[in-house]
């Protein structure tokens, strides 16, 4: 029973990361029409920058600085490279561009910080288990869940309540019309891309405390992020969150019963969803179908 809870809880944490990554990527896909293959790369950069900054500004400072720097890098990448892709309707170009970017980021991170994993120290107050029976329930893991929930809530509040957020949502529906109404869509897309990479950076810093920091950690996450988006339904942000949690939980529970299949199970779920409900759990009908 405890083992089951352990694996389930692990899966939930895993799923929370997927959800956060999927949320950012989903925003970028919807408004920027770019599949950001480098999304995992931004996650890794956020994590490693936080790792390097933590000795100087402390864990909490790094928790803020890592994502912000990932967001700034996102703006730079969008302005310098990604914007050339907007005029090309064929998604192959943006895919290849961000794919190349992902290779460069991984290589750069490996050159700077080394191919071996580095440990990321979390505050001692968060590191200890909360109860001796449920040894896996450390303060940090609980903190991760709370932090991701807050970040998700903040993003949805921003998209619902602020005028900029409402413009982003309007742009997702009909960018041309939003542009015709006098909104600066270039700014809109830049900021949107940065929000996505910022969320990725945030996920990276949080993940650094749970897992070890390795240059390839983005590779493993990006595919799960894709699956989360497809399962949840392209175009639905709630769907991305749901999809992420679902596949994380499924992977966690599978490792309790049949560990060998824990990597494959999320793809099987995706295949099933595609057969039964091709648009994804919460996806809009007809969109990209």
């Amino acid at each position: 029973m405890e083992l089951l809870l352990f694996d389930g809880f692990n899966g939930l944490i895993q799923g929370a990361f997927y959800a956060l990554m999927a949320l950012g990527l989903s925003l970028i896909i919807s408004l920027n029409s770019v599949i950001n293959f480098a999304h995992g790369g931004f996650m890794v950069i956020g994590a490693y920058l936080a790792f390097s900054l933590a000795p100087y500004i402390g864990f909490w400072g790094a928790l803020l600085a890592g994502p912000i720097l990932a967001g700034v890098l996102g703006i730079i990448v969008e302005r310098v490279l990604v914007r050339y892709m907007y005029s090309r309707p064929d998604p192959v170009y943006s895919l290849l561009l961000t794919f190349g970017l992902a290779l460069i980021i991984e290589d750069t991170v490996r050159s700077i910080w080394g191919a071996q994993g580095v440990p990321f120290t979390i505050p001692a107050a968060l590191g200890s288990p909360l109860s001796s029976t449920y040894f896996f329930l450390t303060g940090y893991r609980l903190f991760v869940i709370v932090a991701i929930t807050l970040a998700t809530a903040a993003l949805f509040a921003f998209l619902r309540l602020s005028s900029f957020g409402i413009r982003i949502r309007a742009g997702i529906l009909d960018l041309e019309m939003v542009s015709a109404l006098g909104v600066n869509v270039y700014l809109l897309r830049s900021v949107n891309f940065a929000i996505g990479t910022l969320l990725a950076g945030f996920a990276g810093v949080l993940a650094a405390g749970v897992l070890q920091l390795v240059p390839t950690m983005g590779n493993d996450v990006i595919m799960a992020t894709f699956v989360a988006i497809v399962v949840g339904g392209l175009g639905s942000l709630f769907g991305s969150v749901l999809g992420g949690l679902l596949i994380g939980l499924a992977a966690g529970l599978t490792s309790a019963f049949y560990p060998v299949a824990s990597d494959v199970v999320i793809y099987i779920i995706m295949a099933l969803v595609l057969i039964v409900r091709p648009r994804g759990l919460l996806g809009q009908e007809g969109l990209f179908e």
Partner: protein
Amino acid sequence: MSRRTGANCAIWLALLTVPLWLPLIGGYSALASRVLVYALGAMALNLLLGFTGCMSFGEAAYFGLGGYGTGLALTYLTDSSVAAVIAGTILGGSGACIFGLLVMRRRGIYFAMVTVAIGQIFYFVAERWNTLTGGEDGLSSFSRQPVHLGFATVPLTSAGPFYYFVLFFFAIGAAILAFVLHSPLGHTFVAIRENRRRAQFLGVHVERYVWASFAIAGFIAGLAGALNALQNNFISPANLFWVESGNLVIMAVLGGMRSFWGPLVGAIIFVGIQDYVSSYFPNNWETFIGALFIGAVIFFPNGILGIIRQRTKTA
């Protein structure tokens, strides 16, 4: 003789005489075989990408599947290289036939995401099924066997004869692709690429044709993967990984997606650069490849052959 037949003859002549002229420019036969293998994989992919307009980012799945089929066939079933290649081709193609059913209704970005994610299934299966596939370490329990032609037996162990073995299958694959593209089926693929909705209005069952394109591409990619396994006498999950898919896509784009021979040109450039860079900058060659991706996308969106074609048209 039209310009097109002339170009085709020149290409085949160049390919047939590779062992004669390649050493003069610093190449070697094994490198040429690798170019052909990847060119065939990229040409298969290009049937989807360039001619049907479907952004497949998971072709490595069928490429790798072909390799595993060949490796496993040589390990357990047969001692004939040719039979093993056929086994690999069938395995890769069958995989594409089955999973094509899942992707045929998707479009654009969605198609890309679903194909790449499906490709990962094979990757994880190959990585985890230790007893059959050797797991992460890959499968190295096989080696190329001599080919019996009836009147003679050709050993494939050295790179020269093996190049012609690869060229033989490359020619078959290329001929099938050319035949498909010149048939009504191929014209329908192009119609779907040009205007999917209009094709639908005209009564074309777009999904079935996308499936057909996916399946044919899968068979040819499986053939390329089978040759790849023989080329290395080794197959590992890395051949199924999505990075390999990306490599195939960049070859097609680099050479020119809209032209039949584009992927061959792209493969020459890609494999050449990879060979050069990885021997001089063993630690950072990924950065060079990444920069190649970005540069190609920004500066040569129509590929090398696309540029040449534009020049000759305006001139």
